[in-house]
């Protein structure tokens, strides 16, 4: 009897520890400072909610949105090329989240790409969201990039540090599922 009792206590304790370990809140990760040139395009400035002018710089934390999705890509990466049409679908789906009062904005950082290369990528795939060059890969390294394509979902809340809530190395098959994952990670689902 006493052996059974000990065993059940043991199971209970370990199961509780396992549950608590799994359910414990993950440590928050703040988005590092990423300073970019304000886009020349009026549409892109409006999309990001920027009132600054071209020639000035802005921080990604200033983007006027609830969730910011950063794509790490390269014009030279065949997987990023293959992913581009799916990202465009994701962009449209993300815009439609405004109907549910969730503003999602996308930006792309072209790892090791010049402005010319980023522009060529944009024109080739008709990408509507802002893309920025990261020739020296400074942003890629700051953001802890692990290959391209890669994604970081950032929760933006007024008065709080922008928090990285999602990291993904590699692409996705379904834009719908990826959007769900992003919304869940940010606590909107």
């Amino acid at each position, binding site marked *: 009897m006493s052996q059974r009792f000990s065993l059940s206590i043991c199971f209970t304790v370990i199961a509780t520890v396992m549950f608590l370990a799994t359910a414990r809140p993950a440590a928050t990760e703040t988005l590092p400072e990423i300073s970019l040139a304000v886009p020349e395009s009026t549409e892109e400035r409006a999309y990001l909610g920027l009132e600054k002018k071209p020639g000035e710089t802005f921080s990604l934390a200033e983007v006027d949105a609830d969730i910011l999705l950063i794509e790490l890509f390269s014009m030279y990466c065949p997987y990023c090329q293959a992913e581009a049409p799916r990202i465009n679908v994701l962009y449209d789906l993300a815009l439609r989240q405004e109907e549910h009062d969730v503003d999602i904005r996308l930006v792309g950082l072209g790892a090791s790409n010049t402005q010319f290369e980023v522009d*060529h990528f944009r024109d080739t795939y008709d990408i509507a969201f802002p893309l920025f060059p990261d020739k020296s890969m400074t942003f890629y390294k700051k953001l802890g990039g692990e*290959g391209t394509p890669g994604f970081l979902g950032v929760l933006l809340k007024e008065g709080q540090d922008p928090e990285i809530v999602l990291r993904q190395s*590699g692409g996705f098959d379904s834009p719908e599922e990826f959007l769900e994952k992003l919304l869940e990670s940010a606590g909107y689902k």
Partner: protein
Amino acid sequence: MKPTAAIVLLTALLAFYPVHDAAAGGPVSRFYDYIYNPGDLKPVDSTLKVRVGDRAPDFTLPAISGKDVTLADFRGNANVVLSFIPAAWTPVCSGQWPGYNIVGDRFRQSDTVLLGISVDNIPTLYAWTEQMGELWFDVLSDFWPHGAVAAQYGVLRSDGTAERALFFIDKEGVITAVEVVDINTRPPLEVIFQELDAFDQK
């Protein structure tokens, strides 16, 4: 089961239990998992044997498509860009030709053929370029006699690999521009577009 044994078993289970989500996300591209990184290399390790204004040395090399490609066959018909890369399955090279794969229209607009050349053998080049998607340009093997064409142009390095180099050759077969870049870096796309513009102005 004795309580002690149960504790040992459960402790072992606990030790291997994932206590938090490891890197949320999908698979990392396998292609890049297989890339061998040789580290930083001597930027340039050869001496050019041709220069702008020279007639481009002729050659015939096997392509991964199975045909033989002869440079002289393009004379009078098309401009040619030779893209020498150091070696298959290395970092910068693996991110160079995939970029050229989305600029085919710009080459065609300037009546220009792109030939990718590597000192690797055909099976290696086949396996490597298959990971890049379907390339619109021919990839040629300068494997045997090893690096003979690279040596002819003066871009064969002392370790048997080639420089990262671009040769622009007009329809007359004359070299109009040469770019031998630091092997550790990729030539910016604008360099190619600039030379294609120059072809257009001839």
